[in-house]
């Protein structure tokens, strides 16, 4: 195994972490399931590359701008669909994701189904790490703020959130917007890493994969999402030697872990310094209250 390969896997894991962080806000903290996040990712990817290669914007700017385009589209979609109740919203996002893919398949400006080749490689491990750190910090900050608590309230008991004066619709829109921006940024990074974009990359399978990661990591846990995105990106790579059996083993592993830990890896808790100290047996003050707690 050479470093080039390992670095590649780590970069992909980092890109997945960003997308999963976004989805984690929507699914894990606001309680809305989406099977269309690959659609936002595709919008982000194509816009970023368009901004960067056709309009000549600098790399970082075009990636972030791509994320914002995805966010803007989500505002539009959110207006139409967020009034729908749980399952219906989920189906609507599924349709949205597929629609985006099919549109890109047929729009020749971006290469259509043949894809968009020749994108310069501009993503390395350092870039991805920086995006990850910023993404994680922003999300932590958000979750621990008043707004984060309101989103959790929407997840926990929407009706109750309404009657105490939370504008639940507005928070759903905000949550979807932020999570679409994350997905869009992840898409832009993916484009600039793969140096090739194709609508096929952003199919339903990708959306499903991210939802699996969020649930696998544990609903309502940022560290769980990061951990799950990392593990579930690296695991299939480690199973390469099993050739055709690779995804069977991958699937079995996911099923096994979900049976063993239905609440997900972290189950709503976070990895904290206090928690680590507790595991290592270092006495700390008031360890019981180390964030989120039991679910």
């Amino acid at each position, binding site marked *: 195994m050479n470093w080039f390969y390992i670095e590649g896997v780590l970069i992909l894991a980092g890109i997945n972490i960003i997308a999963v962080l976004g989805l984690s806000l929507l699914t894990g903290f606001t309680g809305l399931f989406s099977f269309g996040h690959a659609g936002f990712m595709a919008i982000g990817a194509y816009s970023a590359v368009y901004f960067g290669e056709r309009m000549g914007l600098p790399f970082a700017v075009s990636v972030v701008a791509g994320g914002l385009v995805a966010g803007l589209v989500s505002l539009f979609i959110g207006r139409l669909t967020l009034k729908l109740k749980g399952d219906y919203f989920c189906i609507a996002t599924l349709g949205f994701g597929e629609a985006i893919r099919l549109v890109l398949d047929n729009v020749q400006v971006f290469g259509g189904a043949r894809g968009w080749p020749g994108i310069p490689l501009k993503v390395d491990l350092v870039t991805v790490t920086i995006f990850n750190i910023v993404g994680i910090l922003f999300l932590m900050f958000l979750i621990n703020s008043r707004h984060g608590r309101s989103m959790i309230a929407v997840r926990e008991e929407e009706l109750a959130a309404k009657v105490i*004066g939370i504008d639940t619709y507005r928070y759903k829109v905000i949550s979807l917007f932020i999570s679409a921006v994350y997905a869009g940024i992840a898409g832009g990074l993916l484009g600039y890493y793969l140096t090739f974009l194709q609508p096929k990359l952003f199919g339903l399978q990708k959306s499903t994969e991210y939802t699996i990661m969020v649930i696998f990591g544990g609903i309502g846990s940022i560290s769980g999402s990061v951990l799950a995105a990392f593990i579930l990106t690296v695991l299939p790579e480690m199973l390469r030697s099993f050739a055709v059996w690779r995804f069977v083993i991958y699937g079995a592993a996911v099923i096994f872990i979900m049976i063993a830990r239905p609440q997900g890896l972290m189950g709503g808790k976070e990895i904290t310094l206090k928690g680590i100290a507790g595991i290592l047996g270092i006495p700390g003050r008031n360890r019981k209250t180390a964030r989120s*707690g039991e679910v």
Partner: protein
Amino acid sequence: MLEIKNLHAYYGGIHALKGVGISVSEGEIVTIIGANGAGKSTLLNAVSGIVRYREGSIFFKGKPLPRLPHLIVKRGIVQVPEGRLIFANLTVKDNLMLGAYLRSDKEGIKRDLEKVYELFPRLKEREKQMAGTLSGGEQQMLAIGRGLMSNPELILLDEPSLGLAPIMVETIFRVIKDIKNLGKTILLVEQNAYKALSTADSAYMLEQGRVVKSGRAADLINDPGVKESYLGVKVNNRS
């Protein structure tokens, strides 16, 4: 303080409220009693904006009430929903702080938190516990406390005694009186007609979406019709 006139609400094809009119004066406890499906909860939900009404009007302190829940809370009306609906995976304190969501006066919030803890010392003890681990009665206390945290003028209580042990029912009704003494106005929906009537100042009786009786609570409690239907007392010589 609250004037509801000719209110009509529907659930799909079901005509749940058929022209209900009630009025609540400041500082009073007003109760709405009635059988299951009489439209009691629908009425409360219409006031707090959860259920849309098709016809009629709701005025609060002389002005028409907005129709969106968060705007209604802003005007000073809060609902403590049926079945408590606390945020199970948040701590007791977080639940209470979410109640103060629309406020930004830090001092006032702190003062009201103290007040809630005074009313319910149990909540203070369990401040850091996850709300889902509380007993039913404690959850009801938390739901009421959460409502109080928005510093409302009018509190809508939907079946606060639902599924609670008799001793806890006593506590809740005692607290309802305490809350009235804090200067709040209360609109109370209850199945437990006897308790509700003996706590309230005035009362309305709903039947199939209509007000069929109203008056002072003390009078209604002695009304033969009410006695027979809701208090389980057989009245021999009905007038």
